[in-house]
């Protein structure tokens, strides 16, 4: 890889931007590097000197990177980028899958019995609706990415942000319902102190059931999310590598 390839690779690594913003910045810098280099050559500078000047001029500074992040990076997008990095490794995804299978097998008997849904009441359906939406988007993305192989850069991340929110929403809702039940339980127990033991268990049944459902559904939805996001991250990395190689060949 030549010097320009090196600087573009460094920029690619140091720019914590979501795609396609990162690819766009790289393409612009690459084109301007070329233009700068050619101008310097036309002005009679040697190839080595022109290259050195181009690198000095276009080297990524921390201020510039921070400014670009301010312009392009929403909090959710940055979170997705971090998670995409985490979900890119085969080993990590494999481990997550194994943990999920163990947890789901351990929890399966409680869910098969359906009493847990009865205990949870209507809150379980609200919690489940979000998880169903996340899984639905996940299935559509899996169809597009793995079967139809629609890898158009602009479409790659479409729907991922919504899927992330729908994936974590059940966990938040589950905790909220659990805390509300715990708060109610404190009031009941305080008012009926002699029967505290029995009442505490009865009061927390709904909260526990909702929380168990919410966590199990979040786990299932997150497997879909990690699979889809990992695939998108790999496709983007491949695109970036091809881009950098092309730029390297041109020089």
């Amino acid at each position, binding site marked *: 890889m030549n010097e320009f390839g090196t600087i573009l690779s460094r920029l690619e690594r140091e720019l914590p931007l979501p795609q396609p913003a990162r690819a766009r910045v790289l393409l612009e810098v690459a*084109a301007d590097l070329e233009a700068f280099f050619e101008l310097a050559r036309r002005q009679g500078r040697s190839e080595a000197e022109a290259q050195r000047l181009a690198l000095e001029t276009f080297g990524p500074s921390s201020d*510039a990177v921070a400014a670009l992040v301010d312009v392009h990076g929403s909090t959710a997008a940055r979170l997705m980028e971090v998670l995409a990095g985490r979900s890119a490794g085969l080993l990590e995804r494999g481990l997550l899958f194994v943990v999920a299978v163990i947890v789901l097998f351990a929890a399966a008997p409680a869910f098969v019995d359906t009493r847990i849904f009865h205990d949870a009441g209507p809150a379980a359906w609200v919690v489940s609706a979000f998880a169903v939406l996340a899984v639905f988007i996940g299935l559509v993305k899996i169809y597009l990415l793995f079967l139809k192989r629609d890898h158009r850069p602009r479409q790659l991340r479409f729907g991922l942000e919504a899927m992330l929110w729908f994936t974590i929403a059940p966990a938040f809702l589950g905790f909220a319902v659990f805390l509300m039940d715990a708060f109610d339980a404190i009031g009941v127990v305080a008012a009926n102190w002699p029967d505290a033991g029995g009442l505490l268990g009865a009061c927390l049944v709904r909260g526990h059931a909702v929380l168990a459902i919410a966590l199990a559904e979040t786990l299932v939805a997150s497997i879909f999310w990690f699979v889809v996001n990992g695939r998108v991250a790999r496709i983007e990395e491949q695109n970036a590598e091809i881009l950098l190689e092309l730029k390297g060949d*041109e020089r």
Partner: protein
Amino acid sequence: MARNALDLSNLSKSMNELLVLSSLVSGPRHGYQLALDVEELSGGLITLKHGTLYPILHKLERQKLISGSWSAKGGKGRRRRAYELTETGRDYADRLRAEWRGLMVCLGGIVGEET
């Protein structure tokens, strides 16, 4: 009432925006051409660092004051992004330039004429 285009609390940011928008008044430019124009027009006094240029361009584009488009592939297969002013951007640039001129007059009155 229209908001002031000129941000007095951050004059360097406003000046960089002014330089970019003023350079685009005469027609579409690539990012690198913009930097060269500014340097040339200022007689080498003002240099728009490329690290400064891209965030400004992207921010102005996000605000729909300028629009960018990729050029067709040239002989060596390179695609470059050219920027041009939008109608809103042209109005904004006019306002920004007028406010800067006003500021210059005001500063001249404070600093005083050279004798």
